[in-house]
């Protein structure tokens, strides 16, 4: 039997706008392994797409966390809420010298909007833990970025940083999807939203 992800159209639409060139870490193994072997003579990596995607994810999670902080006292089963404002600027990087591609701005806004609405339906304790763990992910990415500034091109740091950004996206997407799947006020009439098994 194959388990497929939920058909969450809005979230998937946002995710679909993210770059196709950010592959799972498993596909990066050969290149990373080669760089490890070739460490003394290596030059800096060029991952513009990965860096841009990473920046999008960090900004998205920052916005979500900001909305969490502002809404800490919201009741568990509150009705629909206003969308969280999206920060207008982003300042993060994938190592030194990479910046966000403007093409990701629209995708970021959609992702943030979708997640902001759903997170309000989570129990406060779970929301607080989610907030704390998003902070943990940001601290991790910040720490690795700091180390990368000192050791640009380090394959271990680059791999861990990319994995951290991917984890951050996964956490945001999963939190949104799990909450939506069990929210039975909204889905009662949506008979097409089914989980294929």
């Amino acid at each position, binding site marked *: *039997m*194959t*388990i497929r992800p939920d058909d969450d159209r809005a979230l998937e639409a946002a995710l679909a706008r993210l770059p196709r060139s950010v592959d799972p870490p*498993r596909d990066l*193994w050969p290149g990373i*392994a080669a760089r*490890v072997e070739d*460490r003394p003579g290596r030059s800096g990596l060029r991952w513009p797409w990965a860096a841009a995607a990473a920046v999008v994810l960090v900004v998205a999670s920052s916005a979500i966390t900001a909305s969490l902080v502002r809404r800490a006292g919201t*009741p*568990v*089963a*509150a*009705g629909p809420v206003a969308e969280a404002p999206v920060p207008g600027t982003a300042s993060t990087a994938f190592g030194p010298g990479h910046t966000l591609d403007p093409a990701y701005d629209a995708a970021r806004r959609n992702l943030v909007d979708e997640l902001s609405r759903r997170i309000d*339906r*989570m*129990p406060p*304790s*779970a929301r607080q*833990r*989610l907030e*704390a*763990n998003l902070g*943990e*992910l940001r601290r*991790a990415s910040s*720490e*690795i970025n700091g*180390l990368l500034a000192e*050791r640009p091109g*380090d394959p*271990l*740091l680059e*791999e*861990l940083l990319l*994995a*951290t950004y991917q*984890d951050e996206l*996964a*956490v945001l997407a*999963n*939190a949104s*999807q*799990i*909450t939506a*799947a*069990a*929210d*039975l*006020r909204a*889905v*009662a009439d949506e008979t097409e939203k*089914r*989980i294929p*098994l």
Partner: protein
Amino acid sequence: MTRMLRPAFVRAPSAVAALAYAAAAFAAASPAVAASIDQRSAADPAGRIEVANTAGSVTVTGWPRNEVEVTGELGEGSERLEFTTQGKLTRIRVVLPKRSYGVDETRLVVKVPSGSGLSVNTISADIAVEGVRGGQRLQSVSGNVRTATAAQDVEIKSVSGDVEVTGSGARSLVTLTTVSGDATLANVAGEVNANTVSGNLAITMTDVARSRVRSTSGDLGLRGRLAADARLDLESISGDIRLDIAGPVGAEFEVSTFNGDIRNCFGPKPVRTDEYAPGSELRFQEGSGSAQVRIKTLNGDISVCNK
């Protein structure tokens, strides 16, 4: 659920009225009796069962009948229990009103044909599954998830709830995602893809084929026997990683940490990766070297042993 209904005489100044109001308020605050659930329907022996409940609990048990039975208590304030069967799909949902504040917990006890595939979604309700041989997809925001699995795939997602999976020892795919919840996987085999931010993961595998386990700050522990062609990746930012391999070992090991310590029971010692940095790495082959094990951390310590 507590519903404070404001009586019409609330503004009456008399002591009698005040007493009457207090009595009414006390009565309103008393626990309401939940509505009993007792429903059943014929079902396909290998159909799909979807269960959704916001708060309370969901207990699903596989049984040898081609029938789905739902019992339990519907929490006060819930709109209704939706229980439908259409073709191979049986759907059980606790539907809440559009504006639902303080709805009581609902307890669902569901019996399903043991060959069913199962999907359960909750917000804070705990999930317990036993005796279901089909694939399982279990998701909860803050409820704990406990399941016994067979040879089919299992996917579990949780934000803050803890997870406990007991496998059958047969190969399958277990996909696990938690944010802060701890997870224990026992007697699983085949492929495990597990990811957590701060939860601790303890995994016991009878047979490791291809598995990838990651954390940000949670500790990772994996004990198991490596298949000849196993591919095992363990990765953490600041969590510690412990790998205990059972039985004969034929694998290439690639272990690296930026700022942690490496302990290796197989003999070879880690080497510094850079004269001016704290990182160290360890590469060695044991036995045939046909399997591959990669372990990486930023700050976490790593232990690799044969036990």
